């Protein structure tokens, strides 16, 4: 019988059961891709030396599972974790206390200043209320039946006494001012 022998890179392959796949691959590369690497030799079986296992057989296949060398014992790892976390917590709490202390000092200064700022702000507020009332009086003096602070004599709040000061809303308070003044007050956080 004849076998297909293929020489490729100084090796000769025979088309027996084991090498059939390789031979087919080489043939494929030869025929389809026109590769010049493999050389096909037709020869008889007698001239071929059969490739056999070495004397004493192949070495055994090592299939045992190999574990990596542990970095430290699990107890040591857990202990290290607990110690690190504890120390971290300790320093975190120390810092937290310090920050609290700073905040208390800052708040204390603000509380001490509140009466001074409030006194000035209250005076300015009352001045502005009077200005607004005067402006409305001047603006609506030609309108017949108009009473300041009411809708043609009908008060906004009926059951509230005259001596009570009702604070106007923002839109009412800034009604004679340019729009920007109201927007700056209403959207003050955009300047932060």
């Amino acid at each position: 019988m004849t076998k297909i022998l293929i020489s490729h890179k100084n090796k000769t392959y025979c088309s027996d059961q084991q090498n059939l796949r390789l031979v087919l691959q080489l043939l494929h590369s030869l025929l389809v891709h026109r590769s010049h690497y493999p050389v096909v030799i037709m020869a008889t079986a007698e001239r071929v030396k059969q490739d056999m296992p070495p004397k004493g057989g192949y070495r055994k296949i090592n299939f045992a599972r190999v574990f990596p060398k542990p970095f430290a014992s699990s107890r040591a790892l857990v202990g290290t974790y607990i110690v690190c976390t504890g120390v971290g917590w300790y320093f975190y709490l120390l810092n937290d206390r310090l920050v609290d202390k700073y905040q208390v000092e800052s708040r204390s200064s603000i509380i001490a200043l509140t009466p001074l700022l409030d006194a000035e702000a209250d005076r300015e507020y009352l001045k502005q209320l009077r200005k607004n009332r005067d402006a409305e009086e001047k603006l609506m003096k030609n309108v017949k039946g108009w009473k300041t602070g009411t809708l043609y004599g009908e008060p906004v709040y009926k059951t509230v006494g005259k001596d009570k000061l009702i604070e106007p809303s923002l839109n009412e308070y800034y009604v004679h001012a340019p729009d920007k003044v109201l927007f700056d007050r209403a959207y003050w956080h955009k300047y932060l």
Partner: protein
Amino acid sequence: MVVTNDTELPTFEELTVEEVPISTPGLRAAAHHFGKYCLDVNDEFMMCKQETNDPRKCINEGKAVTNCALEFFRKLKGNCFDEFQIYSNCIDKSSNRMDFEPCRKTQAVYDKCVFEKMGIERPEHGFFCKARVYTGNRPKPPVEEPQVFNELPIGLKDFKEEERPPAKYGQRNWFIK
């Protein structure tokens, strides 16, 4: 606006007093000493605001606060002007929140000067955050009594419990009795 001509508002002359022309870092630098110097006046004003809840009724107290502040800052200017300037400048430029903690050195100098020349000691840490009892001279505000409505709305008959007729279709929760 809600404010009518009947609403009492103080005049501009009553409301115009000399204000404190100091910016935020200066106020913040002097805050603790100012709070201690004007402690009673400030408490009186805040108590008035709390009790009356009306800015018109606390104008005199507010003027007293501003007057006290002016007096304090004039004294400060006369005695410890340089120390105060350096300290407030440090507070202004050391952090973006005007924190106190980067300025402990200048604060120590300022505190020493204020204590020696004006006799005001820096209050303890968090003094103004703590609760204090202040019993001023103000009379106790009257307790607001709840509004009582005597008359029933028009068209509603006032039943007494005995006169109440039985329900037409029986009681809904008949099992309770």
